[in-house]
């Protein structure tokens, strides 16, 4: 064990030390960690911006932000969270780190392209910052709807260009993963022996690849309209602004599945490990991942029921939207069925996964309310939508990200964090979450519109409570980060398999060596066979630091 040097001690390409051993590395693990730090930076920034928004809304009238600044703040919150955090978070960090290990290989297929993706990601972030300090950050919301995005004087072009670059980064990551899974799987690993996280990344990668170019061209069109004034979306010159919305959502609806699918993959990994039981319905979960990827690409116009599109379209897209609920529900049932009669070992990752299942279910079910055209017309563009979206994206993907952090942290850094603080943080975040978003559901049903700087007196109590919830959440996230990073001060003492996991990443040292495996890995016939772990008994019980 001691003789194996981890990837921290063996830079790739060899010979570079210090910062250069990171900035020009081709090692997927180092690139994953670089993503992790960058993504966490943006995440914390956007969380604080969200806090600023809620703080402003806690009291009626102007509290401390000018209305224009408020508009920029929520746009910035949305743009950062979507393009710089949620879309790349799970694939770029955990996908990069664990996909090659889970399929028993030493790196992704295109290591240089992988590094390029990281640089594109960073460049996108830098351009977004630049747009902040030039003509003022856009006040359009992250959707950049025309005609406002074409006519507003704020710096939409630069922000749109940032999203354009980030789209490239995401596309290339998807391309890399698909090729890696096809061409670099261990020779004896068949498709139905892939771990579910890898499967979810595979489905995600296809959506990244096929949907992202649509938003690329859409954003290019926004820039073209701003500079050349072609009038493709201008009704006074024959254009149709609703087509912009179609094109935008053709990407952006599939994009929410780019965000959630890897999250579902993480949960599918964690639940069986701590239930000490094979995952229920492996094939059903695989099939539902693919079904979500496909069906999710057919439902984009359910964002547009009130836009003035035809009633036929409303009917068709509503029907298809209900179809997407089926594969998502299959996953939730499979997770719950896996837990049933399992030998449950409570740990922070499992706790966060359970929170995920609950919060995501709330998000999913309220999605059905929104997917039905009747109620949608009542709650369209209200806080109900905001709460629904955050339940799926934050309660879903966000919690899956937290769970993945806690699950794979010991593998990535070789150090265990404190369990007690992790639980406290998780409770704070989840409690704050409920306190935050339940009032927003109610506010939405009462008719409070979203993205408004101010509101009528009757909405004051709800907004006040929601602001409190936000403070708890921010405190919880802060504690979680402090707890995780505090572990880095400790010695590396974590054994290869601290949790009792059986996928390949738990057969290698923590942290893994440069080429992941010291010798060719033994590929298990089935990735979720826990009989050996159960036979070993409670001696292997996971412990916090």
């Amino acid at each position, binding site marked *: 064990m001691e003789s194996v040097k981890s990837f921290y001690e063996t830079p790739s390409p060899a010979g570079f030390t210090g910062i250069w051993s990171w900035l020009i590395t081709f090692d997927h693990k180092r690139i994953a960690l670089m993503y992790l730090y960058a993504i966490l930076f943006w995440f914390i920034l956007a969380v604080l911006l969200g806090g600023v928004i809620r703080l402003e809304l806690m009291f009626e009238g102007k509290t401390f932000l000018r209305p224009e600044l408020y508009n920029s703040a929520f746009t910035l919150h949305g743009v950062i969270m979507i393009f710089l955090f949620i879309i790349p978070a799970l694939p770029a960090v955990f996908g990069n780190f664990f996909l090659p290990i889970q399929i028993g*290989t*030493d*790196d992704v*297929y*295109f290591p240089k*392209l992988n590094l390029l993706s990281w640089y594109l990601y960073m460049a996108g972030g830098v351009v977004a910052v630049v747009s902040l300090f030039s003509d003022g950050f856009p006040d359009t919301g992250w959707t950049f709807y025309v005609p406002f995005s074409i006519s507003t004087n704020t710096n939409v072009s630069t922000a749109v260009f940032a999203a354009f670059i980030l789209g490239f980064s995401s*596309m290339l990551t*998807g*391309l*890399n993963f*698909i*090729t*890696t899974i*096809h*061409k*670099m799987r261990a020779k004896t690993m068949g498709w139905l022996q892939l771990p579910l996280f890898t499967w979810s990344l595979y489905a995600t990668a296809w959506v990244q*690849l*096929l*949907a*992202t*170019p*649509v938003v*690329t*061209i*859409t954003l*290019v*069109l926004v820039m*073209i309209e701003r500079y*050349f*004034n*072609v*009038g*493709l979306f201008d009704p006074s*010159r*024959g*254009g*149709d602004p609703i*087509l912009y919305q*179609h*094109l935008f959502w*053709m990407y952006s609806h599939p994009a929410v599945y780019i965000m959630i699918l890897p999250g579902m993959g993480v949960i599918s990994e964690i639940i069986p490990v701590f239930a000490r039981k094979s995952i229920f319905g492996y094939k059903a979960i695989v099939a539902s991942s693919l079904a979500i990827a496909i069906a999710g690409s057919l439902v984009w116009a359910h964002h547009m029921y009130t836009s003035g599109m035809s009633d036929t379209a409303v009917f068709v897209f509503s029907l298809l939207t209900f179809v997407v609920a089926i594969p998502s529900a299959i996953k939730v049932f499979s997770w719950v069925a896996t837990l049933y009669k399992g030998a449950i070992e409570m740990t922070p990752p499992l706790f966060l996964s359970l929170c995920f299942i609950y919060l995501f279910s709330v998000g999913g079910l309220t999605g059905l309310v929104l997917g039905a055209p009747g109620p949608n017309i009542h709650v369209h563009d209200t806080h109900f939508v905001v709460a629904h979206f955050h339940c799926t994206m934050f309660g879903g993907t966000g919690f899956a990200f937290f769970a993945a952090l806690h699950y794979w942290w010991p593998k990535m850094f070789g150090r265990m964090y404190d369990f007690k603080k992790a639980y406290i943080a998780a409770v704070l975040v989840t409690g704050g979450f409920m306190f935050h978003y339940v009032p927003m559901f109610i506010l939405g049903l009462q008719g409070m519109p979203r993205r408004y700087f101010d509101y009528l007196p009757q909405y004051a109590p709800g907004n006040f409570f929601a602001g409190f919830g936000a403070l708890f959440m921010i405190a919880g996230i802060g504690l979680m980060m402090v707890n995780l990073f505090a572990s880095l001060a400790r010695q590396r003492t974590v054994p290869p398999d601290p949790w009792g996991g059986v996928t390949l990443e738990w057969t290698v040292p923590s942290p893994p060596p440069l*080429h*992941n*495996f*010291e*010798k*060719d*890995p033994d590929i298990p016939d089935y990735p979720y066979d826990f009989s050996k772990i159960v036979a070993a008994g409670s001696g292997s019980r996971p412990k916090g630091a």
Partner: protein
Amino acid sequence: MKPQTDRTGNKMGMWLFLYTEIILFGGLFVLYAVYFDRYTEDFIAGAKELDRVFGVVNTIILLVSSFFVAASITAVRKAHDRIALAGLWGALACGAVFLVNKYIEWGHKIEHGIYPGSEKLLDSAGGQNLFFGLYYVITGLHGIHIIIGMTLLGVSLVLVHRQKITAQKDALLENCGLYWHLVDLVWIFIFPLFYLVV
């Protein structure tokens, strides 16, 4: 564990990239489809204003250039280096002629006051404006792809010349070729949609 050396995935990666290009242009064809459906008459009138000769000549040029590229790949495989080089030079020349034609064609239109935001288009019916708007956006984006494709072919040309691309190691040439064929593919659809609608 030793690093993997399986290199058969390069072409797959290129195909995946081509899909993104197809969808990229696809977004514009979505707009075309909708606006054609809505303003069929205006689109037909617009197509009449475009010069068919340019369209036909450019189509022939691109088809021939695609043939050249395909032939040069065959040549590299057979170690016929001179044919391979000739093919790539031919394709590059075709690309250059295509761009010159495009330049002349755009120039004529702009002289006649037809360009995005021009007064003539502002005064004309909505459908005309959209037809020429799409014409400029789509052929412009396609032109950019021609330039990128020519760059790639140029790189391949140099590498074939230096014996860096050989029968055993031709993945790069194949991938550049794929890109060039895709550019041709897009033009195969642009041509009837803009020059031939009646």
